[in-house]
């Protein structure tokens, strides 16, 4: 066991996976000499050289598009998009190429690749650096979407992502890169892609969150528990595939649910979860499913971002609201 921050865990895992498999290589902007703008790839170039740690020209579509070609031809590229907001540049190569190659070749070709990208607000970035865009990819069948919230999860999930036979988008909450340290096993281990984590059990209300939003959600849970509520907290960890079973099991037990995510509300992952509960557990719930989310605007400027991001106060308020709305 070693104490690691999330960024250290990611760096550690990349190194470990590259040592393990010669076909794993990483590519992206500033990931070599500079070690990545967040140091996720720090020092890797010294160990593995420029052949396996590739500083690419500044072109997102090319980073992903060439990774598709490599992956189909037997390499395991782990590509970095410097900030998730820049992923629009490469939407075609992800959603229309990587995600679809298996389907449109009737299973003949597939692109086992990982795309890592930092996202999340609360760190006062310039425009287009913080947006949470997971819903765009949930809507693009063929790609998996992983969003860890702890150093340990980041390690186990990144290993699993690299081993995965499908293209995986691995979204790293930059706000949590260095927010906490925890003991992480050094040994290689994988956390199953598509399995949510029941962070704590409770009986009154299910709170569902993931990635960056877990931080405020956890604070809210603490506050609520101090106020006498028994909260069941689920960290989804993976958006695609979605662990519907964990969601339904929990909601059937607590009969109430609040979803917290940092992305905008409209057509967000929260809407999907709410619809699933409606389809599969309607008669077990005693209050409408509520969502605490970002507002339906582009991610805002630094001076107002803390009002935009779901805060502990807003979460607490909505949980109390659900409680008041309950039929029983």
């Amino acid at each position: 066991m070693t104490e690691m921050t999330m960024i250290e865990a990611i760096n550690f895992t990349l190194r470990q996976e590259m040592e393990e498999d010669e076909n794993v290589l990483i590519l992206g902007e500033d990931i070599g000499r500079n070690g990545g703008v967040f140091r996720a790839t720090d020092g890797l170039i010294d160990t593995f050289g420029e052949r396996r740690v590739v500083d690419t020209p500044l072109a997102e579509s090319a980073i992903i598009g060439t990774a598709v070609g490599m992956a189909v031809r037997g390499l395991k590229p782990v590509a970095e998009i410097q900030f998730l907001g820049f992923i629009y540049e490469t939407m075609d190569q992800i959603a229309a190429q990587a995600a679809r190659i298996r389907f449109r070749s009737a299973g003949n070709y597939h692109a086992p690749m990982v795309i890592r990208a930092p996202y999340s607000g609360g760190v006062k970035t310039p425009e287009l650096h913080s947006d949470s865009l997971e819903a765009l990819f949930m809507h693009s069948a063929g790609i998996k979407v992983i969003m860890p919230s702890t150093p340990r999860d980041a390690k186990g999930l990144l290993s699993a992502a690299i081993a995965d036979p499908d293209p995986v988008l691995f979204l790293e909450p930059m706000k949590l890169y260095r927010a906490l340290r925890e003991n992480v096993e050094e040994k290689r281990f994988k956390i199953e892609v598509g399995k949510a984590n029941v962070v704590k059990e409770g009986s009154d209300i299910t709170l569902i969150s993931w990635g960056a939003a877990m931080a405020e959600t956890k604070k809210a849970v603490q506050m609520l528990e101090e106020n006498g509520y028994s909260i069941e907290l689920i960290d989804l960890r993976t958006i695609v595939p979605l662990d519907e079973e964990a969601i339904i099991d929990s909601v059937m037990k607590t009969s109430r649910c609040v979803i917290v995510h940092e992305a905008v509300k409209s057509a967000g992952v929260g809407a999907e979860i709410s619809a699933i509960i409606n389809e599969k557990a309607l008669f077990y719930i005693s209050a409408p499913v509520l969502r605490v989310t970002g507002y339906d605007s582009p991610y805002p400027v630094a001076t107002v971002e803390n009002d935009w991001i779901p805060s502990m106060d807003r979460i607490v308020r909505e949980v109390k609201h659900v409680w008041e709305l309950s039929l029983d």
Partner: protein
Amino acid sequence: MNWIEPNSIDVNPIQQLNEQGVLTGETSISDEDKLEVYKWMVKARRFDELAVKLQRQGRIGTYAPLIGQEAAQVGSAFALGEKDWIFPSYREVGACFVRGTSPSSFFKYAMGHLHGGILKEEGIFPVQIIIGAQALHATGSAWADQYKTNDAVSVAYVGDGATSQGDFHEALNFASVFQLPVIYFVQNNQWAISVPYDKQTNSQSIAQKALAYDMTGVQVDGNDAIAVYETMKQARSLARDGKPVLIEALTHRMGPHTTSDDPSKYRAKEGEEEWGDKDPIFRYRKWLEDMQLWSEEEEQDLNASIEEELKQAFNEAAETTTASLGDALGHVYEKPTNRLKEQILEWEGSGESK
């Protein structure tokens, strides 16, 4: 002042076999291969004619004709090695045939069969619909070969329209920076649906765009199968040494963009005749006949055997049982997600969600 002016760049297309079927350049191609190239071109054209006819009869779906581009496609693909990979667009039937796609695969593709997406188990990417996207896949594939020190090149087949796309330029730039064994083979057929070359780009040539990336660029008469073949062979040996190449094959799309397109809306009959005289098959046949390598009788035999082959290929496609939606949904991820499993069951009518 040392301005770099576009008009100081000389671009002269390579031609070996002129429009009258006279060999004006040199060729290393053996007599046997001369005939092979011809047969592939004829097969591509016969397929094309048949596909258009079948589409008109409603027996296959939309089809993108290649007529006029046989020399560019066959000449280039014929120069490749066994292990090379090609990344075609929707118009590359001729190149794909040479590389091993069976005609029935293309019928299946045009009929919307699930397995029409497989042009070959290895070595040929599925048809690319997004203009230019395959330039990057070829680049990545070449990167994989370089990484694994495989002796192979990757070839991206794109049109003139694709050269306006960012992906095309990003691909060239990456290829040059990383010295990848890749060839970008542009069939400049003068049109991107209704937009002519001079509205696509203001450059005098596409070949010259290679200069900006410090890559080798070359323009070749794309209706001259011999020039295309020789150029591609040279490009291949450069690419294998990590010197990527941009080839512009000047050709002409003699037919409509696809079977749903009406070119009379945007192009005049005039200029067309001029291209008719440049027909790639006509000049090649004349050359073969002048060398006494080909006769009218052989021509008839060839056509008869192709006709038979294509008929069988179509029947095979027509008789192929359609895959179910359930089969198709099984190819989204390696293993269907729970949600997909549920949807497959629902579709099969045995799910719980009824």
